Each structure stands twice: as structure tokens, then as C-alpha cells.
């Protein structure tokens, strides 16, 4: 059990592209455990990515089943993902996101409605899952962290955009 400190922007590690995990060794197992412990300790959090605890490796965990809105939807419970990759995406939805690494700010972000993601799980088994709604949003947010993207890079609408009209 190791709860790590969650890095907060402008820590430059949050803007790095993380390296794939080539050998699934003890360190990788430990990293997944630290991610789970830190996510649980953060209480409100439904996911966390390795760079948020300072590990520049491609791993993230997501669990929407404990959140008020997430548990109303179908979900996969705790997902521990090594080298995750989104291989299909469909539709789009707007959601107001916040991030533990960017406290006290939220923004409207457009995400795919449903995704297919493949990864190695904690037992080194290849998983391919299809998911939508809340869980799909959480996965997209966490996977962005692995490429150095914060939701601030994805904010897609100022409310006034609704009123922008075509030039005549």
C-alpha cells in the first residue's frame, strides 16, 4: 500500500509523453498498486494516470463504480491498464471535466461517446473492452495524461460559441 502524492500543474512531468512498459515486472505491478491506492485515497477520484504520480510510463487505472453518477451506468468496475490504446471511437458528447492535477478549474470538453480500448490487465492478460458514457470519458481523460495532454488542451467550447454566426 503506497499512496503517492498527486502532481499538480505546472509540474513538467504532466506534459511528457510516457514510455510503453516493455517488461511486466515487479515495478510495473507496484506502479498499478500505487495508482489504485492513490486513486482510492483521493476519495472523489474515478481514475488516475501514472504521470500524475511522477511515473512516466504507460499505465492508468479507472473505477467509476464508486462515483455517484458512474454507478448508475454499466461499467467494468476497477480497470488496471498497462499500455492502453483506444482502437475505435464513435460519436461525441460534451462533458464538464476537472482534474486532480489542475485544481479548481473545470471546462467543457468534447469526448467520444463510445470507445474500444485494448490493454494488458494486472494479470498480464490482453483485454479488449467496449465501453460508453461515464467510463469511456474517464478512460479518454486518463489516456490523454499518458501523452502529456491535460483537459485544458481539449476544452472545446466557450459558451458564447453557441452564438457565433456564419459570416454573410
Amino acid at each position, binding site marked *: 500500500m503506497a499512496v503517492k502524492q498527486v502532481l499538480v500543474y505546472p509540474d513538467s512531468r504532466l506534459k511528457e509523453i510516457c514510455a510503453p512498459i516493455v517488461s511486466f515486472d515487479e515495478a510495473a505491478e507496484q506502479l498499478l498498486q500505487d495508482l489504485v491506492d492513490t486513486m482510492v485515497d483521493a476519495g*472523489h*477520484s*474515478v*481514475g488516475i494516470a501514472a504521470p500524475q504520480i511522477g511515473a512516466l510510463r504507460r499505465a492508468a487505472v479507472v473505477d467509476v463504480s464508486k462515483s455517484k*453518477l458512474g454507478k448508475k451506468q454499466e461499467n467494468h468496475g476497477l480497470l488496471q491498464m498497462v499500455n492502453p490504446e483506444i482502437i475505435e471511437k464513435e460519436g461525441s458528447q460534451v*462533458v*464538464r*471535466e*476537472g*482534474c*486532480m492535477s489542475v485544481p479548481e478549474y*473545470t471546462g467543457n470538453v468534447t469526448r467520444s461517446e463510445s470507445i474500444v480500448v485494448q490493454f494488458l490487465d494486472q494479470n498480464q492478460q490482453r483485454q479488449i473492452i467496449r465501453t460508453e458514457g*461515464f467510463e469511456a*470519458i*474517464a478512460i479518454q*481523460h*486518463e489516456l490523454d495524461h499518458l501523452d502529456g495532454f491535460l*483537459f485544458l488542451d481539449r476544452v472545446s467550447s466557450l*459558451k*458564447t460559441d*453557441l*452564438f457565433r*454566426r456564419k459570416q454573410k
Partner: protein
Amino acid sequence: MQHFALTIIGRDRPGIVSQVTEILFQGGFNIADSSSSILGGQFSMILIISNPKIATQEEFSDAFKPLEENNLSVFIRTLKPGGEIRPEQEGDLCMISVYGADKPGIVFQVAKELGDRNINITDLNTKLVGDKQNPVYVMMLEAMLPVDTEIEVVENWMEALKQRLQVDISVRSLVVMEL
């Protein structure tokens, strides 16, 4: 530190933000919060500012005179202590869209329905669109529902209002995900 609300408004043109923020920067001001937009042909800025060297409005003296000379209106409000801090609000956010043929009182009727029930409007935009023959009024608002108010209840109020005002109204919950 003493905070002030600064409001600036004037005919839109390129360079307003630059001129305003240059004055603030040169004068040693901090911008804590700001929002700017075009309304009609007017560019409007609202900023919460502070300056370690300034405690009262009188000390601004002529700082913003160059703006007034450029046909911008400047208004300064001195905030009460803590007035710069947004209060914590508990509850779920919802978005309400209202649109329909233009008629008097749309904004008021919707706002009254919410205000009477102690629902806080946190954001509001209205716009008259369409053409001269068929003006359409569009209103988008964001509101914070008190913890004990379910979104279905709001939908019911809005349904009644929709019949009464003969406009279209939709209510959606705005999902906020902390990740």
C-alpha cells in the same frame, strides 16, 4: 489585499484587451478573474483585480484615463473583504435552453421560476437571432440545483412554463467529472 471589480465597455474594435491589460501590467495589477465578450457591437470586460500598492479607489487616480479618451467607459467597484472569493456551492449543475418566437418577458419568467425556488443562476446568455420577420429569442443558462432538488422536478416546472409562454425549453444535467 483589497480587490476591485473593473468593468470596461465600448464599441468593439481590435486592441481593447491589449490596451486595458497593458495599463494593468504597467501599474502592477493582478488579474484574479476575468470574463469578456461582445454584446451587440459592444466589447465588455469584467475583471477582478488587485494591486499591493492600492487600498482605496482614490489611489487609482488617472490610471484608466487613456481608456476613457479612447471612448471606453470604465467603472470601478471596491469589493468588501472576501468579496473576491467564490463561495463553495453544493449541488448539481444543470443547463436550461429556452428558445422561441420573441416576446416580452421570457428571461424574467424563467428567472423568476428559478429565483422563487432559491435556485442560483451561475451563467446566463441571451441572444436575439433569426431575421426581422421572424425574430427568435435564445436563452441559455446554467444553474446550481440545491442538494434536495432533483432534475426531474425542474423539468416539471419548465414544462408548465413552456405551455404558458409557448416557447421551447429543455433541461439537461451538466455532468461534472473530477478525474
